[in-house]
């Protein structure tokens, strides 16, 4: 599956746009970065790219893995949470500069035209669902549940205006419980409809989804966010353990795995 998609390339892509979403502070905020990156004929939502701006110099070695937010007319849109040294430098990119990009990488989410599809995301895990929603042939089949800490306008929330989407602001343990309950209920329904559950978010979130998948029997995919070195399957730094006890690269064999086939 992944093989056929892997027409990856590496370029220094010009920055077309880079702006902070919402009105919060830049540190800890989310940036919308648009790059001029023509040439992909095939890509799949849930795939990602590696980004390495010139400002990394030789000091920061690795590119940073970022989900493809959307790709249209040769323009690559990314949503980046400014959370550390590397993403801070990505947030500082300005139009006219270039950034080294390689991709598309990894496998991407399953798409089943006629299956009701539940998208579950936490925080910046919302990013791949922008393109997923955009590319889906039957958006009426889509539902999105979103746990978030920043105000909704800090995320690409308007991308979901035409589907059934609900946000859960997490301010305390009770909010979290509400979100989990909502996810469980939706998963029960989806399971009953033989639908598809797709999820992306931080590790504790993924663990919860995996547990719910087991409990509800919903067909569920998890997108893992392991730390990456190369992004292309070579360094073996990003491995996760599969159901056979084998160690598989998250970057090239994932980042999306069936919940039953992977240990998170």
């Amino acid at each position: 599956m992944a093989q056929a998609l892997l027409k990856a390339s590496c370029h220094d892509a010009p920055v077309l746009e880079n702006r902070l979403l919402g009105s919060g502070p830049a540190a800890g905020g989310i940036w919308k970065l648009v790059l001029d990156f023509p040439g992909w004929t095939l890509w799949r939502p849930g795939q990602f790219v590696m980004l390495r701006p010139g400002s990394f110099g030789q000091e920061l070695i690795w590119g940073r893995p970022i989900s493809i937010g959307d790709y249209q007319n040769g323009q690559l849109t990314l949503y980046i949470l400014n959370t550390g040294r590397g993403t801070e430098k990505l947030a500082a990119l300005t139009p006219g500069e270039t950034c080294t990009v390689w991709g598309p990488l990894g496998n991407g989410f399953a798409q089943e035209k006629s299956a009701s599809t539940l998208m579950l995301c936490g925080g910046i895990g919302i990013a791949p669902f922008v393109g997923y929603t955009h590319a889906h042939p039957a958006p009426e089949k889509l539902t999105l549940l979103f746990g978030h800490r920043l105000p909704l306008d800090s995320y690409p929330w308007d991308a979901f205006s035409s589907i059934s989407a609900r946000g859960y602001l997490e301010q305390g343990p009770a909010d979290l419980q509400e979100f989990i309950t909502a996810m469980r209920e939706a998963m029960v329904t989806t399971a009953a409809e033989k639908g598809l559950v797709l999820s992306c978010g931080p590790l504790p979130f993924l663990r919860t989804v995996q547990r719910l998948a087991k409990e509800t029997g919903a067909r569920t995919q998890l997108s893992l966010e392991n730390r990456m070195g190369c992004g292309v399957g070579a360094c073996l730094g990003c491995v996760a353990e599969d159901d056979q006890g084998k160690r598989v690269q998250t970057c090239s064999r994932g980042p999306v795995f069936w919940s039953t086939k992977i240990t998170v």
Partner: protein
Amino acid sequence: MPTETSPVSPAVRVGNLALKNPILTASGTFGYGLEFAPYGDLKSLGGIIVKGLSLKPRLGNPMPRLAETPCGMLNAIGLQNIGVEAFLQDKLPALPHQEVPVIANLYACDADEFAALGGILARAEGIAAIEVNVSCPNVASGGILFGQDPIQAARVTEAVKKQAGETPVWVKLTPNVSDIAAVARAVEKAGADALCCINTLPGMAVDLERRTPRLANVIGGLSGPAIKPVALRCVWEVARAVKIPVIGVGGISSARDVLEFILAGATAVQVGTANFMRPDAAFAMAAALPAAMQALGISSLEELRGQLKV
């Protein structure tokens, strides 16, 4: 009608092995080669050294296995690999090994295992050379690495050599020794056809908040531009100590870096961590090398090799 061609040639020979340029990919940083096929023409490289192979498949170390450090990185992959048989069956045939030398890196825990691996690989079609990774603990002698003891390193070399037949045997040295030249001389005497300098430097990183090491294995190998000065020094010391070719590795990330190692005495080089900085790094260096040579006013690498004025 003869066309004007540039007289600059980056071709080199490592012993009997002719390379179209001195740029090899370092073991463990280029997968089994095919991972990088989307980013350049594998055949444009001097050679491909694949991930370290062991007799049986290995799971490697637990996660996390990587940490980023200033101008460098730590890895403790721990030799996860599919095993020599699966490599020969599934990976090697897919590589353009007729057109670009494929070098097998091998890893074992005792001399017999090294010899067995060497034998299997030497008999395989399409392996241009064997690189012996002696940076592994010698279980029999209480954990010190084979490569830290001239006698043990020589013993492993001899054992592999005996099985390798015509296939050249390269030995990759660890910098974590008091006197790398002494190890180099011992390994040369034991019959090695070339020496590769250097493997990673043992290092460590910690997570203050969690009070844990950043690597599950606690200690990992430091690589990248940070170690370039150490690698260059090792190449210089080893090249003066032995007559066999020296292959430089450590922090090389540009065509100029390649030339610096050749100036210090290397015959060829390996590109490691730079492959992570961008996946077309090795291809770009191979492409940029002729122009960099021209800028220095040399038409062959022979003119530069070991020409450091001291």
